[in-house]
């Protein structure tokens, strides 16, 4: 509760800043302090109590998993601001609004980590998404940015429509919005309305996390948006979407008397196996052919979503822990890569040529991030993938899915390593649009070391889930 309310207040404060504070540099200071207060408030709620006690009427419920994820997300955003806030200032005129929009979007994510009702799910998804439509189009003079924004908005509203339709059908079938009650309300008799409603909801949530076959918006939007905001969308928002998805489905998994696999008479394992395979094929194969690193990262984010979908596929304790690790490993690495990328003037592979000669520290950190995305041991990405895949090994009869998963992990190494080859083994000089400051370099190195630490001792992240 603390996080939701304080983030909304912080967003409003940021908006007022733009009217009353003229010094642009001070916005990020305000945002920083606000986020740190948010983090502290959220930790206080995790370990003792909430500052706010409203009657919630079963709309929201807070558990350890959700609160811990909130903390991790706030930490990610703090890192993101630390590395990229100077590029946010370069995007356009209304700097304070950008910060405000990002924080409003965060508020949506906090609702998604705690909803227990279809209406709050809908609210969370919308509060998270609407600021993004604006952020995507924030380069007002750039045609690509405008196109991306419009495309994102149209597709996004369409999927929202699907979700509303799904909610309505589920309500029609079960007479309740409560996610814990919609399962098995008739004692096993499944109505046609519920099944259709569930499938519509899944389709619309797949859209939000860019799972195939609902991923077509992703490359264009990620490519068109300013790089700093792509970084935010590809990491924190994607994790947010997944949390919503997982919470929505886990309400069914937690009903002890219901077999998860067969609720609503649908073989969920099979459906998710198909979605995973399609997402992995599309994301990985298309990423291989990209010349632009930014676009490659867009496709790679689809491929990574394919691995995160394993959490939805298996829905057991391992997958929950795995998702936490994956969220951390993936967001840290991607934020790091984008932080460097958004300072560069040429975001194609050739732009990276010779980075190791001119900026060895940045190149080294970039290698760690890329290795982590590829899932190489000693980096956080390895244990993230390990947990995800091992959660699926537990599901009987789907070993083929795991084998397919590792083969695509090996394919993904191909396009990540091409960036490493450009940086280290090709001649050239990398040109930067914006200046590389000392604190920035140190920040990136620290992030890389964090990635390695999580890769060697993943328990440090997971322990806080329980203690």
């Amino acid at each position, binding site marked *: 509760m603390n996080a939701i309310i304080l983030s909304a207040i912080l967003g409003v404060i940021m908006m007022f800043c733009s009217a009353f504070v003229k010094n642009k540099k001070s916005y990020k200071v305000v945002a920083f302090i606000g986020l740190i207060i948010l983090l502290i408030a959220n930790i206080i709620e995790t370990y003792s109590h909430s500052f706010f006690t409203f009657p919630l009427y079963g709309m929201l419920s807070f558990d350890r998993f959700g609160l811990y994820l909130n903390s991790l997300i706030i930490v990610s955003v703090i890192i993101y601001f630390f590395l990229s806030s100077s590029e946010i200032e370069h995007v356009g005129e209304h700097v304070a609004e950008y910060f405000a929009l990002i924080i409003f979007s965060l508020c949506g994510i906090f609702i998604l980590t705690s909803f227990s009702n279809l209406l709050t799910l809908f609210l969370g998804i919308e509060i998270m998404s609407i600021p993004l439509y604006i952020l995507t189009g924030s380069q007002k003079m750039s045609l690509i940015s405008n196109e991306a924004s419009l495309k994102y908005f149209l597709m996004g509203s369409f999927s929202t429509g699907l979700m509303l339709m799904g909610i309505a059908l589920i309500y029609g079938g079960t007479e309740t919005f409560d996610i814990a009650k919609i399962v098995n309300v008739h004692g096993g008799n499944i109505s046609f309305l519920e099944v259709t409603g569930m499938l519509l909801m899944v389709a619309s949530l797949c859209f939000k996390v860019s799972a195939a076959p609902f991923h077509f918006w992703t490359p264009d939007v990620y490519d068109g948006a300013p790089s700093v905001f792509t970084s935010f969308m590809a990491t924190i928002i994607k994790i947010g979407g997944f949390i919503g998805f997982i919470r929505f489905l886990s309400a069914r998994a937690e009903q002890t008397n219901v077999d998860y696999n067969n609720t609503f008479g649908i073989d969920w394992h099979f459906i998710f196996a198909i979605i995973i395979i399609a997402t992995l094929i599309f994301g990985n194969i298309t990423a291989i052919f990209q010349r632009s690193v930014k676009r490659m990262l867009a496709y790679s984010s689809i491929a990574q979503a394919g691995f995160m979908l394993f959490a939805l596929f298996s829905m057991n304790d391992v997958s929950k822990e795995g998702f936490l690790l994956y969220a951390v490993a993936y967001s840290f690495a991607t934020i790091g890569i984008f932080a460097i990328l958004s300072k560069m003037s040429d975001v194609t592979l050739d732009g990276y040529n010779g980075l190791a000669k001119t900026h060895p520290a940045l190149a080294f950190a970039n290698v760690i991030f890329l290795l982590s995305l590829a899932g190489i041991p*000693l980096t956080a990405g390895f244990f993230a993938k390990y947990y995800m895949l091992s959660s699926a090994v537990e599901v009987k009869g789907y*070993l083929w899915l795991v*084998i397919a998963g*590792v*083969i695509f992990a*090996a394919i993904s190494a*191909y396009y990540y390593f091409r960036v490493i*080859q450009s940086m*280290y083994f090709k001649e050239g000089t990398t040109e930067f649009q914006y200046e590389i400051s000392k604190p920035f370099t140190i920040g990136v190195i620290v992030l890389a070391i964090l990635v390695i630490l999580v890769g060697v001792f993943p328990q440090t992240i997971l322990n806080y889930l329980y203690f």
Partner: protein
Amino acid sequence: MIALFIIIPLVAGLISFFVKDDKSVKGFSIVASAIVFLLTLYATSCNHTLSVSLPWLPQLNSNFSLSLDGMSKMLCVLTALSFPLVFTSTIDNHYSKPNNFYGLMFLTMAGLMGVFLANDVLLFYFFWELALIPVYFISSQYGGERRIPVTFKFFVYTFIGSLLMLVGIMYLYFQMPNKDFSIQAFYNLHLAGNQQDLVFFLFFIAFAIKMPIFPLHTWQPDAYEQSPTPTTMILSGVMVKMGLYATIRFVVPIFPEAVKHFSHLVIILSVIGILYASLIAIKQDDIKRLIAYSSIAHIGLMCAAIFSLQEIGWQGVMIQMFNHGINVIGLWIVANAIEQQTGTRKLSELGGLAIKAPVLATMFMIMTLANISLPLTNAFIGEFLMFNGLFRYNIWAAVIPLISIILVAVYSLGAMAKMFYGETTAHTENASEAGSFVNYTLAVIVMLVIVLGVYPHPILQLTQDTVNAILK
């Protein structure tokens, strides 16, 4: 103490990255690797199994646990001996950034040591990958002209293999009632026959790629040719032993049924590989490619001998793992010396070197004889025992690969003749004796070749306990 085998190379590697001066980094590397060698010798002299265990991932029941039994001792000594030899013999090579080169070499060493020591399957997987990544960076940065695609092919091949192994590990792990990553728990897991068959392949493909076994060998000649010679020495001398080691350590004890099912298949593939590689080696013009194919043939024989499941054959494998490592490093050192002297690796452009460099020629002659596994050289006893084991398994499994001994003689002596005898060419006219460091290392290797050829008992005795424990 055995944790030091890993920690010293790791720390030495990190230090090397910051020693920018060419001379001091080279000196430092030789000293540091020699210290590790002395340590391993000391550990080998202990009669009992040394082990260490620290908690690492308690929730997964995975420990940082190392243990040193006979086979590990033998391979650790090989690893620790190879690095000083490699560093000393290539001391005259020039690199653009020597600190990075030596730093990455030490990381490889740490990875290799970890692989041979790990007593925990997840830890083993960690080191398995750790040994690969630095090699990728070294070869892509310091290799020949086609280094980037070739090294990448090598990387993708082995990475796919190790990921399949990872699936296998996970599968076995989830079959256990009380989930545990220790190697003992994997041994105690008795799977049903059809389960074994599937997981056997997940593991064996990974190891077969590393060895490499026909038809998964295609990365190897290119990678050996394009990598800088010091890395090639480590790749062929020590790293291929990872595949053999892991087959003995994991595949045979964990999947006894599947090994019996597929021993025919693996031996047939190995024998095809032996003949095929030997035949191709005859046609090679590049010294490095010639040694690469010869290495495929030797490794194929060792793999076949493992799957014959005869005690005597396994003893041969143990001896040969060590000796092949020594011999092949010796061959590479000569190849490197010749390339440094003449600027070419093509047999057709060489000739008459025996007059210009008589010491090198003598050393290479002995090494060549060891490669043909003539009696009195160290390779003889190993190959003899392996053929003996194969003979007990099936007479044809021994007779057909015996042809390869003739083929080895054909290409080895052919190469010898082309390089050292005949008229001098434009390339060899100004050649002279290799540097004194090269000669000293070659002398050490030649001594080992002869001493172990006459008295192989220490290695046999060292590894006897492992052979007995695994073959029962």
